[in-house]
């Protein structure tokens, strides 16, 4: 039987076992939508209609990040495609496996400045893992096959497939065959680590006196949380993670010393600074992690395990680079330990732990909750307690994101879903939506701020349509808090455009969309509100917490400072000689 391009598209999705696709219709994808309609009737694929293409892409990201499946999106040509760009760039920066199908004007109109024509392949080139413009109906299936393969293998990332409308119209039909085997001579990610390098890693570990295990989002992508935890525990290493890595090592374990970097814990950053061996696993020494490279970990040798060779020795030179899939490399390392009868001496780092314990005693995340203003930290801590650290937590970008990262105790990977690399305000709500769609019976919270929530607030409509009982935790300080904090420290308290005037009545807004809205103003009401929202598994709760207006995130390492130059509180900032005019 011969199929139209649009029918082929559906068959490809089925072959890839896609059950959910996020999108927004338009002229160039009408034929594809017509087939999606039929596929939905047949119960094969569910289409989730977002309210903006950015929401559709973030939704697919949330879906992908909380499962082991790629996210799939469909958008129309022109504005549909350009609206998707922020989401695509976000997925690129955070290595999220994503396949985005965009409609294109018919081939005969390409290049004519036709209605809703845009060169989306050109626009997205620098922010995709790869992209394709399909020019023949025969290429639809092989291209989609490649797109899924590229998106999900190696270091994952977004792939855009641009399909001209006339290829899907039915004017031309061909026999459908989904390619089984796929060999791409130009794309063969290295999965297995080099044995010699792994062996020398063991030797380096045996010599170290002050090691630290530094894990990132690559451990999540590689599903290697179990192996990483085993490694940490076998050696009694102190373990720190990046913002993207939270949850790969249980936060409540005593060896976990917290997140590192700009808003990381005092102990994590000191441990990095004074360590003599950094074992970096699926992490990339991002500038928010390292601060000033010239001051970064002056005494340390570096073992760097990552699937992306371009991430190794990019910012910090690796003395022992190991290219490979984190899970494979760690398993190979355990195998080698067995062969060599290598038993780690768990007390080898007692002196090191003593130093670390002293840094821990500083208790850098301590705060005081009085009974007037709600502290954002308090809300997150209560949420963590009530959900036992097991909820899915999506976050937006700003102070609330850092507080979520600091005070929610993630015990499992894939639970903390945020925009780390691009730092996209507006990510939280649609991402939470995607998570809830993937896990209908789980508790999903979206920690957001009064600025961020407004960037994709329209998705409240999607949540009503699909009855997603999210728990939106709006830490409403009335400011674009994170930017205000920088203005306070570095711009002499000139709060340019960071006071959020004319905020809507969020309770009424939630209600307008058919949700439950609550405004919480007193610390004493925090716990009750959270419990009410979480226990109601039918309704979306919009919890508008009125929090301390000018609270700051501590600890903080200002950009381009060293790990041993932290502000623990406002006094440190005020006394910073570098800031004195």
């Amino acid at each position, binding site marked *: 039987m011969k199929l139209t391009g649009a029918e082929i598209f559906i068959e490809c999705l089925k072959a890839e076992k896609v059950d959910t696709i996020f999108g927004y219709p338009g002229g160039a994808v009408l034929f594809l939508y017509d087939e999606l309609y039929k596929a939905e009737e047949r119960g094969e694929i569910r289409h989730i209609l977002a309210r903006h293409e950015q929401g559709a892409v973030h939704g697919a990201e949330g879906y992908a990040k909380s499962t082991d499946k790629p996210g799939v999106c469909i958008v129309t040509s022109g504005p549909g495609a350009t609206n998707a760009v922020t989401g695509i760039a976000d997925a690129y920066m955070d290595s999220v496996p994503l396949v985005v199908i965009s409609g294109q004007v018919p081939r005969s109109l390409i290049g004519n400045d036709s209605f809703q024509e845009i060169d989306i392949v050109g626009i997205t080139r620098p922010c995709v893992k790869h992209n394709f413009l399909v020019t023949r109906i025969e290429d639809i299936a092989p291209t989609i096959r490649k797109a899924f393969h590229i998106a999900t293998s190696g270091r994952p990332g977004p792939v855009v497939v641009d399909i001209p409308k006339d290829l899907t119209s039915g004017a031309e039909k061909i026999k459908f065959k989904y390619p089984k085997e796929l060999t791409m*001579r130009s794309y063969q990610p290295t999965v297995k680590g080099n044995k010699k390098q792994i062996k020398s890693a063991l030797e380096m570990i045996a010599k170290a006196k002050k090691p630290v295990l530094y894990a990132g989002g690559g451990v999540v992508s590689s599903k290697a949380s179990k192996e990483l935890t085993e490694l940490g525990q076998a050696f009694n290493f102190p373990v720190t993670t990046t913002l993207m890595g939270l949850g790969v090592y249980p936060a409540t374990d005593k060896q976990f010393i917290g997140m590192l970097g700009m808003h990381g814990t005092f102990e994590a950053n000191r441990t990095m600074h004074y360590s003599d061996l950094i074992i970096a696993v699926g992490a990339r020494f991002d500038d928010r992690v390292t601060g000033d490279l010239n001051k970064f970990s002056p005494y*340390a040798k570096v073992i760097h395990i990552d699937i992306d*060779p*371009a991430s190794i020795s*990019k910012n910090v030179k690796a*003395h022992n680079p190991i290219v490979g899939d984190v899970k494979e490399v760690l398993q190979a390392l355990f195998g080698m330990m067995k062969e060599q009868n290598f038993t780690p001496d768990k007390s080898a780092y007692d002196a090191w732990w003593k130093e670390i314990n002293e840094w821990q005693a500083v208790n850098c995340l301590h705060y005081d909750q009085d009974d007037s203003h709600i502290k954002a930290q308090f809300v997150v801590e209560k949420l963590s307690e009530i959900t036992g650290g097991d909820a899915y937590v999506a976050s937006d970008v700003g102070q609330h994101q850092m507080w979520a990262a600091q005070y929610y105790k993630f015990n499992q990977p894939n639970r903390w879903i945020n925009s780390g690399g691009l730092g996209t305000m507006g990510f939280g709500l649609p991402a939470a939506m995607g998570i809830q769609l993937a896990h209908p019976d789980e508790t999903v919270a979206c920690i957001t701020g009064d600025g961020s929530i407004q960037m994709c607030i329209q998705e409240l409509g999607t949540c009503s349509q699909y009855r997603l009982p999210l728990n939106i935790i709006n830490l409403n300080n009335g400011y674009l808090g994170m930017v205000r904090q920088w203005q306070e420290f570095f711009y002499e308290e000139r709060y340019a455009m960071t006071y959020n005037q004319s905020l809507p009545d969020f309770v009424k807004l939630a209600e307008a969309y058919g949700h439950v809205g609550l405004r919480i103003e007193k610390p004493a009401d925090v716990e009750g509100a959270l419990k009410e929202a979480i226990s109601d598994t039918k309704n979306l709760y919009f919890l508008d917490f009125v929090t301390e207006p000018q609270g700051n995130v501590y600890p903080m390492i200002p950009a381009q400072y060293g790990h041993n130059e932290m502000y623990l509180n406002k006094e440190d900032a005020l006394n910073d000689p570098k800031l004195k005019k």
Partner: protein
Amino acid sequence: MTKMKDNSKNSGINNRERHIISVLMENETGALSRVSGLFSQRGYNIESLTVAPTDDETLSRMTLVTTTTGGDASVEQIVKQLNKLIDVVKVMELSHYPHIEREIMFVKVAAPNMEVCASIKRIADIFRARVIDLKNKMYTLEVTGSPDKLDGFLETLTDNQVIEVVRSGAMGITRGNNSLRV
């Protein structure tokens, strides 16, 4: 521990290094812009670039010359990023191996009288350039050689009225072993 060098654009203007990179890539639309995008994104200038299909027409070979100020680390990073491109099959920094480099150039010069003609021919002989066209009292010369030699040739011609210059950009190949092939 060793730190990566500061590769900000204005550091060490004076120690510009020339790198010649060969790339084997899928002969696909857009492959070229993916490569050039990596350079433009970082503010690196591509001094010259030649590209054409190879004996295997599904493969294109590119020779790219760039000067950077960021030292080896920034070129190493570029080479890794090139390798990461899905369309790129293999990358080699030719400058790391014994190699041969050639460039072809056409120069159109005014030849108003016999005296000038003779002088141009003399220079051409020295550089093994050939006169390949003569029209409207203008000579077109063709010369092949290393980019340095071509620079030298142009310099010697400065006394003449040079009307037009076309250079192909360098292409390169390694000597003996270490070949760049699939």
